[in-house]
């Protein structure tokens, strides 16, 4: 699997920090700036549910999510509601994954 001995010709993730920094910038831009302008047409599954007539089965089990539909409540501008929700989600996920994986993957030796 990945992370085997360093045979040349074997591909692995890049050690180029600039590329990862670029991915971080791209992530924040996508979550914070681009997300409000994403298409709001139904996605593949929603479309199939409409076409085959089972969209009505959807039942919201107690809606306790703090930011339903990727919107932070209480902000007058819709793009900011979505963009802020995206930023919060991306940052929370990054932090949670980092700490979870760090705890999981032990230091060598």
């Amino acid at each position, binding site marked *: *699997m*990945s*992370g085997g*001995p*360093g045979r*040349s*010709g*074997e*591909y*692995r*993730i*890049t*050690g180029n920090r600039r*590329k*990862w920094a670029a*991915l971080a910038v*791209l*992530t*924040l831009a*996508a*979550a914070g700036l*681009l997300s409000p302008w*994403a*298409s*709001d*047409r*139904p*996605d*593949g*599954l929603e*479309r*199939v549910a409409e076409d*085959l007539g089972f969209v009505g*089965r*959807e*039942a*919201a*089990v107690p*809606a306790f*999510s703090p*930011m*339903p*539909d*990727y919107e932070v409540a209480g902000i007058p501008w819709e793009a900011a509601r979505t963009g802020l*929700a*995206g930023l*919060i*989600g*991306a940052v*929370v*996920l*990054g932090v*949670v*994954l*980092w700490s979870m*994986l*760090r705890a*999981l*993957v032990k230091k*060598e030796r």
Partner: protein
Amino acid sequence: MHIPDGYLCTEVWTATSVAGAAAAACALRRTRTELSRPQVPAAALTGAFIFAAQMLNFPIDGGTSGHFLGSALAAILFGPWTAAAIMTAVLILQSVLFHDGGITALGANILCTAVIGSFAGYGVYKAALRLMKGRLRAVASFAAAWVSIVAAACGVALLLALSGAAAPGAVLGAMFGWHALIGIGEGLITTAAALCLTERGTMRARSDGSFRDGARVRGGAPA
């Protein structure tokens, strides 16, 4: 492609919740050995990128949209178990914070996108590389991504059919058809990201897995 609450019948969502929890636990356990410590920041960042990219629905033909899934990308970069763990974290966050994907359907969503998506993507990627003797990685990545999202969609279709939401043939055909189209976008994004974020294995030791294989000289070439 997040199944909301209500689409699945009680038997199906109960069974998939149990199976999904077991799969998630197994993925976490296997991630311990599959992922190496220096890869942790990159894996966390990839998870955040996948979440952000999933928000960007792109319009496709016929008044429908698609969005990036990411299972294949994570599997190509870090291996299938780590990918399953990352995707599970994405799904839990989306369901709990954003009400995207039902809580009762979380297990089903984990099975389809995190497990099926990651392993289908990884299997196709490895098989294609072997078939083409390591050449044409772009083709291998594209194929892995396309198969990954289509396989996940077929898994969802199967669960919907089992739940009596729609006739098996109709729902399978419709899910396959739309996601075969969405899979082109999935393939393009995955290929671009995978080619950009990987390199040949003779580079610096900092971000490679060969630390554990004895060659732990700082800055030295891996054995």
